[in-house]
C-alpha cells in the first residue's frame, strides 16, 4: 500500500541509491545464458538421438523420454549441489529449459525434508514449480479451446 504515491524524499533517495547500485551485466548474462542453454539443448538432442537410435521412438515420440531424462539429470545435479552454481553462472540459460523445472521441484523437496515427508516434502515440493504447472495447464487449455472453436467455426 502507499507505494504508489511516493514522497519527494523517497524519490530523491531512490535516485541517489540507483547511482551506487551495481548493475546486472545484462549483455554478459545473455551471452552466458545463450551458451549454457545451448549446451543443455545439445545434451537433450544427444539424448533424443539416443532414444531414436536404440529404442522404438521416432522424432515425434522421442521428446517425452528425453524430457524425463533431462529432468532426472537435473535432479541428480541439484542433489549433488551443482545445479545452483550452474544457475548462478548461467541465469536464464539453466532456468528456462525443462531442467530448471526439475531443479525447482527437487530443491524445494530437499529444503523441506526436515519437516517430514507429508507436510514437508509433499506440501512444499511444488511451492516454486506449482505455479508453472497451474498456469501452464491453464494457458494450454485456453489455447486449445480457442483452436477448437476456430476449427468448429471453419475459420482455420
Amino acid at each position, binding site marked *: *500500500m502507499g*507505494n504508489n504515491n*511516493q*514522497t519527494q*524524499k*523517497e524519490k530523491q*533517495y*531512490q535516485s*541517489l*541509491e540507483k547511482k*551506487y*547500485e*551495481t*548493475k*546486472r*551485466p545484462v549483455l554478459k*548474462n545473455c551471452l552466458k545464458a545463450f551458451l549454457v542453454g545451448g549446451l543443455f539443448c545439445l545434451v537433450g538432442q544427444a539424448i533424443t538421438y539416443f532414444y531414436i537410435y536404440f529404442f522404438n521412438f521416432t522424432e515425434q515420440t522421442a521428446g517425452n523420454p528425453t524430457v524425463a531424462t533431462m529432468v532426472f539429470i537435473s535432479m541428480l545435479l*541439484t*542433489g549433488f*549441489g551443482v*545445479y*545452483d552454481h*550452474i*544457475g*548462478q553462472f*548461467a*541465469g*536464464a540459460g*539453466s*532456468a528456462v529449459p525443462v531442467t*530448471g523445472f526439475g*531443479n*525447482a521441484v*527437487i*530443491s*524445494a523437496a*530437499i*529444503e*523441506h525434508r*526436515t519437516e517430514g515427508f507429508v507436510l514437508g516434502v509433499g506440501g512444499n515440493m511444488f511451492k*516454486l514449480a506449482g505455479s508453472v504447472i497451474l498456469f501452464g495447464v491453464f494457458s494450454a487449455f485456453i489455447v486449445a479451446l480457442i483452436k477448437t472453436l476456430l476449427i468448429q467455426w471453419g475459420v482455420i
Partner: protein
Amino acid sequence: MLIGKQSWTFPNKPVITATGVSGGPFEAKGKLSKDFDILHEDLWMGQDSYEKAQRVLMEEAAQTALEKANMKKDEVQFLIAGDLINQITPTTFSAKTLEMPYVGIFGACSTSMEGLALASFIVNYQGANYILTGSSSHNAANEKQFRYPTEYGGQKPPTAQWSVTGAGAALVKANQNEKGVPVTTSATIGKVVDLGLTDPFNMGGAMAPAAADTIVAHFKDLKLEPSYYDLIITGDLAKIGRDVTYELLQKEGLQIEREKFQDCGLMIYNDDQPVQAGASGAGCSAAVVYGHILNQMKQGVYKRILVVATGALLSPLTYQQKESIPCIAHAVSIEMV
C-alpha cells in the same frame, strides 16, 4: 542516562569481559577465520536440520564466552539474544539449553547491537552483574526463510548479499575499576526508516538511510565529532549500502575519512568468495565485532569505535504483499580504558 533525543550514556562503563564467536565452513575460508573461536567443517554441524545447526552455533558462542570468563551459566543473570528465523526459535532453544533468564529480541541483523545496548544499560544501572548477549544466523536457514530453497538455481543479482553462518556472544559485566578492557560508553537506538525500496536482493540500499539516520542522531545527541572515533563500523550494508551511507553522511555534513568507515559485511569474506555485494545476517555483525574487531582493539589498533548494526525488518509475507522494506540501525560505542 538519556542524552539528547534517543541516546544513552553509560557512566559506569560496563565491561565486555569475554566473547565467543562460532562460524561455518564458508566463514572458515574467509578473511577473518583466525578470529573465530569455533569453526565447523560441516554446514549441518552434526544436526538434522539447519535450524538446529543455528542453535548449536549460538550455544557454542555462549559457552565459549563463559569459558573464557571462567564462569558457570547460573552466575549469569540474563540472556538477551535473537535471530531471524521464525519467531526467533533457534535462540529460544539455545536459551533453553543455557538455562538463563531470557529476553528474546528481534532486530533482524541489528539484533547484536540492540542486545549490547540493552545489556549495557541494565548492567550500568545495577540491573544485573552479568548479562550474556548475542545473535546468530545460518546461511541455509536464512535462505529458506527469506528466499528460495538453498539448491534452487536462480541467479542472484550483484546487489544480493550472503547470509553469514555464525554466531557471536558477549558477556557484559559491571565495571569494577578495570583497566585495559573494552567497555561500552554510549548507545543510540535508531528509528524505523523506510524510503520505499522493495528489492530484497538489495538490502544494503534499503538499510543505508537507517544507518545514516542513526549515525547522525548519535553525533547530534552526544555532541561529538566523527573524528572522536578511530573506526565507525556498520553491520551489513555491503558494497552498495556502504557507499550510499557514506554519501548520505557527507550530505549531512559529517566528515568521516573513508578508511575509518568500514562495514562488517565487507570484512568477513575473501574477495574471491561468491557473495555478490557482501555478507549479511544477524550473525554477521556479531561475529565480526565480537571476534575480529575486539581482538584488534585489545591489540591497540583502535581505541574508540562506533558499531552501527543495521537490520532490514521485512518478512517473507510483507515482501510478497509488495510492502517496502522497513529498516533500522542501532549504534553502540565501545572504548578501551
